């Protein structure tokens, strides 16, 4: 294990080194760093050329220039040495502070997009695998290929028009005609009927129930002004907590063991009490308080569920903790939603922005500030997510199908295990093994995709550093961007291999 990591680290280091060489020489040969000065004249031109030559070491031949850059990077690896700058850009400014600043917003975007795409993709992928060759399967296949075929900036432009400008206008005065409500209900009904499937009768039932429920819910939300003052409310939270408990129990334990269900409901009750108790604490907290509250609730729920669970103590306790964390998440979402009316007002009544990564000069509570981050994330995240989503669903589906054809699944079924146990315990886990590698790749890929997304949505992130750098034939920022992306690629590959070994006992790391 240790040997494997050491060996991989050394190899990765040299691969990274070679990749920087390639990238560096590609960058400096991609144009003329003085291109923008052709029309200018006077001492200004000479002074700029001189300053730029000095900042970019243009008086040094390319190969030693590369080593100068490498030396700058070296300073960052050796602790306590000369100050670490990662070189200079063409104006002579150190690159490292720019990178540090740019990394924050880019990573926020990339991580959120990856996680969302992963969750959505895996869930949809598994459902399509279970319901292989159904209308649902075909629809998802078509949809994911379609998403996969969309030019990213094309999609982004459309998103801005419909998901920001038009949605904002609607949110200012949220109303639907009854026809629209009915139509949305019908569409929801069709989607549910397709997802759930079954024979004609069952589909019709699902359609009817889903259509009516959706339309009714939408109607209620509209007439109660939910869209101007969103939130779960006390009752909503209670119902949600119970729902979460039932959902997790269904997924992780099934309903055969009544005690587990009771334990789960007890955990939900604990979480709900936690919610009530924490109301005053969560007016304007910080991340530490939020995290601490979640941990405390989880521990209490773990203990209570364990006690209630009786003979199935271990399982019940775990489920209890999971429920507590889930409800914790719901509370956070609820709080963010509650911050919406004031934030929306501060944003001039148009809460969803088309540009930037945060509002300037926003003075507000913890929740307002984080909701502001979230609202700025919406559009770029959707754009990035939709495209990765396609990859994840296709691979999860393939992987899940492959696993379900294995003998051990057949054996598990033959043993008489419930479908739930087969799917969750045996199939899902093994199907996830190849997905870890996919994730490693996708993360680096999404970082690359951020190049386009940031440009479209006016984020000052690493992608912008790269694009500007290429534009100016300025290797400093380009290489800084690449250092992060390349390291992420190499690192995630290694992590994926290690994860592989943990998940798949047949593989040994040596």
């Amino acid at each position, binding site marked *: 294990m240790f040997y494997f990591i050491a060996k991989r680290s050394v*190899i990765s280091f*040299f*691969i*990274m080194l070679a*990749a920087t060489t*390639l*990238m560096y020489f*590609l*960058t400096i*040969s*991609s*144009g003329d760093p003085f291109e923008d000065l052709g029309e200018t004249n006077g001492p200004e031109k000479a002074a700029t050329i001189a300053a730029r030559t000095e900042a970019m070491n243009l008086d040094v031949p390319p190969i030693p220039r590369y080593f100068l850059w490498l030396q700058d990077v070296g300073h960052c690896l050796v602790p306590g040495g000369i100050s670490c700058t990662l070189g200079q850009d063409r104006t002579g400014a150190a690159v490292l502070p720019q990178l540090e600043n740019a990394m924050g917003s880019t990573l926020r975007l990339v991580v959120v997009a990856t996680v969302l795409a992963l969750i959505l993709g895996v869930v949809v992928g598994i459902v399509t695998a279970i319901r292989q060759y159904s209308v649902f399967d075909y629809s998802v*296949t078509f949809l994911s*290929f*379609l998403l*996969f*075929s969309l*030019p*990213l*900036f*094309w999609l982004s*432009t459309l998103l801005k*028009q419909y998901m920001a400008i038009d949605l904002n206008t609607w949110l200012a005065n949220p109303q639907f005609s009854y026809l629209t409500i009915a139509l949305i209900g019908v569409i929801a009904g069709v989607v549910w009927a397709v997802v759930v499937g079954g024979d004609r009768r069952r589909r019709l039932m699902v359609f009817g129930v889903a259509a009516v429920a959706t339309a009714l819910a939408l109607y209620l939300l509209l007439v109660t002004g939910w869209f101007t003052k969103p939130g779960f409310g006390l009752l909503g939270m209670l119902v949600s907590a119970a729902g979460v408990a039932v959902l997790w129990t269904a997924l992780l334990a099934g309903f055969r063991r009544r005690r587990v269900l009771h334990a789960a409901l007890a955990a939900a009750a604990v979480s709900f009490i936690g919610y009530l108790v924490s109301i005053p604490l969560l007016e304007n907290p910080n991340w530490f308080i939020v995290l601490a509250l979640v941990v405390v609730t989880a521990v209490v729920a773990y203990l209570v569920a364990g006690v209630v669970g009786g003979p199935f103590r271990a399982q019940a306790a775990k489920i209890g903790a999971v429920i507590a964390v889930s409800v914790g998440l719901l509370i956070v979402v609820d709080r963010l939603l509650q911050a919406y009316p004031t934030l929306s007002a501060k944003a001039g009544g148009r809460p969803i922005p088309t540009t930037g990564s945060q509002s300037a000069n926003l003075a507000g509570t913890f929740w307002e500030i984080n909701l502001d981050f979230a609202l700025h994330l919406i559009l770029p995240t959707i754009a*990035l997510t939709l*495209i990765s989503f*396609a990859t994840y669903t*296709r*691979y999860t589906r393939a*992987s899940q199908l*492959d696993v379900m*054809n294995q003998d051990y699944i057949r054996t598990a079924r033959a043993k008489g295990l419930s479908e739930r146990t087969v799917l969750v315990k045996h199939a899902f886990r093994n199907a996830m093994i*190849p997905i870890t*590698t*996919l994730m*490693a*790749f*996708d993360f*680096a*890929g*999404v*970082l*690359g*995709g951020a*190049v*386009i997304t940031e*440009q479209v949505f006016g984020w000052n992130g690493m992608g912008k550093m790269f*694009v500007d750098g*290429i*534009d100016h034939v300025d290797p400093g920022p380009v290489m800084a*961007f*690449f250092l992060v*992306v390349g390291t992420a*690629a190499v690192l995630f*590959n*290694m992590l*994926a*291999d290690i994860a*592989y070994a943990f998940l798949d006992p047949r*593989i040994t*790391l040596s």
Partner: protein
Amino acid sequence: MTRNDSPRDDSRASVELSEMTLQSQDTDIATATPTREQTDRIRTTEAKSQGRLIRERFFRHKGALAGIALLALIFLLAFTSIGFAGIPGWWNKDYDVLADRFNEGRPTLTLWPFSLGEHPFGQDVLGRDYFALTMRGTQTSLIIAFIVGLVAMVIGTTVGAIAGYFRGWTEAFLMRITDVVITIPTVVIAAAVAGIVAKHGIIPFALFLGAVTWTGLARLVRGEFLSLREKEFVESAKSVGASSARIIFRHILPNTVGVIIVSTTLAISSAILLETALSYLGLGVTAPDTSLGKAINDNRSALTVRPWLFLWPGAFIIGIALAVNFIGDGLRDAFDPKQTRVKQ
């Protein structure tokens, strides 16, 4: 763009662990539970060649068939309408001839009753026929995409085959090179390369793009070679004294055709989108050449005003990418001998 780096065509990250390929895991309407049609066929005792089986499986994939039809249609339309390489086409307008604008350059295409009119896709600001321009862009984009696919296929297959067959230092060397290139996200390396070659015209541009997008294929081919070279038929070929070249070309390569073709199709659809992304960054095809990516990028501000300038080339990009993706899906199913339908 993300999709270019996604391991769609290379699910393995590490050399050490690369044996299980996802390629072989997708499934199709298939053989484990024979349909009636298949049962009928099983009764006839005619022997089927591998190629025929693949063809049959492919032609059963409706999506792939639709993809083929769509792609063929786009190809035909693009190359016959305005002609190509000096051969005139049936469309009477040229993409670079200026004219007066009719009705503010709106499209004259009507579907019912169907009529093309003077300018089916409208006209641009100088009155150039936008249909001819879109066709020209489609030609360029197709040429770029197919050259990129071809170059990636040749380099990737060569590198993968040599590495997988000879192993040892050759393999280590070639695969490290592959690792180096794969570390750089496609859009990033392509942007840098585009800065160098885009100004020299579309052919060098496409060749160089191909030269940086072969890595995924190389890994897959190598993986296939690693497992195939241990098979009995290779052993027996070796034992009768067949040369390495003969073993590679006659015995192993034909068995990896599936992987190669599937990856190449996907490389082609990625290339279409890559070209679009580069155009967006201002690093793609430059005037007087045109491409679909350039066309939509030049007309970004027209989305709400003269949407046809933005939507027609966009529709062709999506059409091509979608068609190629479906073909790839069908090919993957067709070439995969392990495909089975899951029994529920």
